[in-house]
């Protein structure tokens, strides 16, 4: 079984991003970039499927400018077999990314696609569901467990009320939640090996996809700041403040 895993290059989750002072967008100069944490979990899951003998090949795909090859290499160092870089400039909306991925899916015909549930920069939570719609495949979103058997994917999904189990006909699309697994660290030899793994580049025009969007960023601002609070010395002072000052109990 061929598994396709999507990987997005994003600002590292430890960085506290701020709006630029001129309000034109987030300040992204000189910040640490990483694989989106949910995509890292997707890579780990695919590699485990390969180690378990369920997957035969793990292909990584990332859409973005040249620099996202760095994240593809990181995914290869975690155990994936080869990479596909879809070269595209600027920040694309999820629908355009899903269309580019659809074109890759048409070429690669994977039986399973594992994606992150959400990119932690745009916080969209859209691309997997959109790709599922475009390809007419079932979707197992927010997965905390994945089992492949008898041509089906059984997915336990994290939902607001608890957990839901669905069964999906393959080929299917699964998006990861944090509890699906704990990604490994790449070893130095594997990082070296990853440098020699194949990495192909495609462009949006080669794939015949129009990436223009009707959703545009008008401005970006910092969130409302909270008034600095106070420290209370005791539980009784806390209760008194909540009753008489804040009046919330």
């Amino acid at each position, binding site marked *: 079984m061929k598994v396709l895993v999507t990987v997005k290059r994003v600002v590292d989750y430890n960085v506290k991003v701020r709006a630029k002072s001129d309000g034109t967008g987030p300040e992204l100069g000189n910040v640490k970039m990483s694989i989106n944490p949910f995509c890292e979990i997707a890579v780990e899951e695919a590699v485990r499927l390969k180690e378990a003998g369920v997957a035969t090949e793990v292909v990584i795909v990332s859409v973005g400018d040249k620099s996202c090859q760095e994240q593809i290499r990181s995914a290869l160092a975690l155990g994936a077999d080869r990479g596909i870089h879809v070269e595209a400039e600027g920040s694309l909306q999820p*629908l355009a990314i899903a269309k580019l991925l659809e074109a890759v899916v048409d070429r690669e015909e994977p039986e399973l696609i594992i994606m992150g549930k959400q990119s932690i920069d745009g916080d969209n939570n859209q691309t997997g569901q959109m790709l599922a719609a475009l390809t007419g495949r079932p979707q197992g979103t927010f997965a905390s467990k994945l089992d492949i058997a008898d041509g089906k994917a059984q997915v336990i999904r994290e939902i607001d009320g608890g957990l839901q189990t669905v069964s999906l006909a393959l080929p299917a699309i699964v998006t990861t939640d944090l509890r699906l697994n704990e990604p490994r660290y790449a070893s130095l030899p594997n990082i070296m090996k990853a440098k020699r793994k194949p990495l192909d580049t495609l462009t949006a025009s080669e794939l015949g996809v129009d990436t223009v969007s009707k959703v545009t960023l008008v401005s970006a601002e910092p969130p409302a700041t909270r008034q600095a609070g106070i420290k209370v010395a005791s539980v009784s002072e806390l209760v008194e*403040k909540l009753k008489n000052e804040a009046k919330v109990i």
Partner: protein
Amino acid sequence: MSILIVAEHDNASLKAATLNTVTAASEIGGDIHILVAGSDCQAAADAAASVAGVSKVLVADNAAYGHQLAENLAPLVAEVAGDYSHVLAPATTSGKNLMPRVAALLDVDQVSDIIAVVSADTFKRPIYAGNVIATVKNEEAIKVITVRGAAFDASAAEGGSAEQTNVGAAHDAGISSFVGEEVAKSDRPELTAAKVVVSGGRGMQNGDNFALLEAIADKVGGAVGASRAAVDAGFVPNDMQVGQTGKIVAPELYVAVGISGAIQHLAGMKDSKVIVAINKDEDAPIFQVADYGLVADLFEALPELSEQL
């Protein structure tokens, strides 16, 4: 302009988040219709028809929609959506699962998780874990949007008398099926609708100690939440997680106990009206957003707090 809201319901009643979405729709302006798609869902449709401000309820009652599988529901919503300028759903796990699939079928982009309506085509939404608020313009003919419940008041559940019509053929894609569900049962209010939320983090040490938080929640009619670390450590189930990738809450009072205040956690609770933090580390970042901070060992503070409430 008319706006279609995809109801969140359990076939018997409407979920509260639907009412917050109605308020967002009324800020956009125009006729508001609600789609209730489910199986044996007449009771939920009746509830939708009595929501104030709603003029029409579209009912799609079919076994294929019973478990809200996106593969079956999305073609229905896309089919009905053609008559509308906006299609809205709550940004809950079911809205997040369904709406991008609808948007892609309609070949339009989606705007996720709006927290404010600037005009009929311009909205505010948090990005980068809420550290930046983006204003985005959506010029699609049909605007597909999910709405953050915590950012809009609930509209009145009573007072309306919308007409009801049946819509849509049954779509059964036949590629996915529901196997089962493990739904947490609790007598406490729903996390996203509670006036008070008492949350515990890794500092709670284990699941049993959450009883200390439950005792406090019960005294003030509140709900109990958790940080991701507490969920990951297996103290409590995932449905209690508050944060960037969990539930977003904005209660009157949020009490964070044994939670350090990582940006991902703050993203889910920093719009609460009053924040209390109890932490033994006086430098914990949670204190930077807390209105009232108590530097204390939680195992001493919580029993005392419970007693004094």
